[in-house]
């Protein structure tokens, strides 16, 4: 679906602030995958994803969406790419501008030149995906709560019905309720549309709970790109890159190092509990 070849991007060429944000990235993201993207601040995550919908032009290297080289073909390809690859930036509620929620969500589909009927269908569908009720469609987006605004903004991108949906820290700044709500909506969206989804996050918990594979960025390079369990298997490396590993993972790694036959790849409560129950069940009646 998305393929990069030696993708490199340098900011501010020729100024004192010149900095290479990403270097020699070669990745291949499969159609229908749900990919978590992690990395410390300044590791190049945001720069990388801004290439996927042609907001940034690579300094060198190529980027292919569905086999099309974005920058060797004519401009029309890139405009189409904006609709094929939906990008939700950080704090997307800051982009809301219309008088009503309906109009704001319809902004993208309208730019695509769709018919009124199709736009209407898409607005309602997107609203359902983010779990908001139809009654807010005629409200001003600025009268909504923070979490609701965020969801309207995400719906505005979902309404493009992109083949790939990329979200840059969609839960940043929300409380646990808002975070869980949004992440579970995105999970449902992925399952129902079978589209490719990329989730950028600092939270290993959020990533491990949601995605199928993980892309780890470190100092502008792609450090790992593998399944969730393969990546979490390399905990020490992740910690060295300045990333936070879930507490529960740390507990199980320590247990294993103390000689208990447990898996190192535990990153959710459910997995941890199952692992412990297995151990207890095998061994003993002492607690049963």
């Amino acid at each position: 679906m998305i393929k990069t070849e030696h993708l490199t991007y340098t900011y501010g060429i020729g100024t004192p602030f010149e900095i290479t944000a990403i270097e020699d990235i070669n990745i291949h993201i499969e159609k229908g995958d749900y990919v978590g993207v992690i990395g410390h601040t300044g590791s190049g995550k945001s720069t990388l994803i801004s290439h996927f919908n042609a907001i940034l032009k690579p300094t060198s290297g190529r980027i292919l969406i569905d086999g099309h080289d974005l920058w060797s073909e004519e401009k029309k390809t890139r405009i189409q790419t904006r609709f094929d690859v939906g990008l939700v930036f950080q704090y997307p509620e800051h982009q809301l501008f219309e008088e009503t929620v309906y109009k704001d969500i319809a902004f993208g589909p309208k730019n695509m030149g769709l018919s009124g009927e199709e736009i209407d269908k898409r607005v309602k569908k997107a609203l359902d995906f983010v779990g908001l009720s139809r009654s807010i469609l005629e409200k001003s987006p600025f009268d909504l709560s923070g979490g609701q605004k965020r969801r309207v903004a995400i719906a505005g991108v979902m309404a493009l019905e992109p083949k790939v949906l990329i979200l840059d820290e969609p839960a940043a700044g929300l409380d646990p309720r808002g975070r869980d709500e949004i992440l579970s909506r995105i999970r449902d969206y992925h399952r129902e549309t079978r589209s490719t989804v990329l989730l950028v996050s600092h939270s290993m918990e959020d990533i491990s709970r949601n995605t199928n594979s993980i892309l780890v960025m470190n100092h502008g390079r792609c450090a790992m790109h593998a399944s969730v369990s393969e990546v979490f298997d390399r905990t020490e490396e992740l910690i060295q890159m300045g990333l936070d590993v879930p507490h529960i993972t740390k507990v199980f790694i320590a247990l294993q190092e103390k000689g208990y036959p447990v898996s190192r790849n535990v990153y959710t409560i459910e997995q941890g509990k199952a692992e412990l129950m297995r151990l207890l069940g095998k061994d003993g009646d002492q607690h049963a």
Partner: protein
Amino acid sequence: MAKIIEVSQLSFSYPEEDGNPSSPALHDVSLDIEEGEFLAILGHNGCGKSTLAKHFNGLLKAESGSVKVMNMDASEEQNLLEIRRNVGMVFQNPDNQLIATVVDEDVAFALENLGVPYPEMVQRVDEALELVGMTKYRHHAPHRLSGGQKQRVAIAGVLAMRPRCIVLDEPTAMLDPQGRREVMKTIRRLNREQGITVVLITHYMDEAVQADRVVVMGEGEIILDGTPREVFQNVGLLHSLSLDVPQTAELMFALRQEDIKVPIAVLSVEECLEVLEKMLGGAKK
């Protein structure tokens, strides 16, 4: 110990907008904060925790009930300057609280307002920057700093007033893990080493467990108040308030649902390891 902030039976509601009557943001809240303690306030968005915090230094005035800071009534206009000098406040978005275009000039802002004479001002700016570990960046422009660094500058700007208490309203919500660690380390050190009272409003459980005392708010009221260990006993209640619980406590909670007898309020990796080892006993291979 002396009480630095005393809130009694405080109620407050925001003025209604466009005919949408607002439900009370705070309802009959009473809370005493001891000098030198590290208090964390938890609660989902809109539960009234920021509204409460804004009463601690007179940004909002009590509708009914009272707020006293160091025995001064926070609703009296003539006390405000003295209260604000003693109760500093740091907000969520570091970009929107830095006033000057150079770090040290920003730190000096409060001192200029207070009319501190020049030689003392320089000394206090140096001291504040040192306390947050930003001395190296004193001549930098704030907008070129990382989020964590900006937030530390904001803390220094408050520290320069030599306050007895600092109230931080979700200071880490917009930061990455690295920035969060920096800010938390700074806050902890100020509390332990400088004896400054800290009130930390947060969503992050790993931050709350570092406090001496945790207050949980919901719908404008205080629901729980105790040590982290006491508060995190109530996993079910916290879940019903849509709040997180430290993962280790969450694991214990899950085990207890299977009738395994483990303590609930297990708050650190080390503690959790100890409990699990005891539980597993001879399960080593």
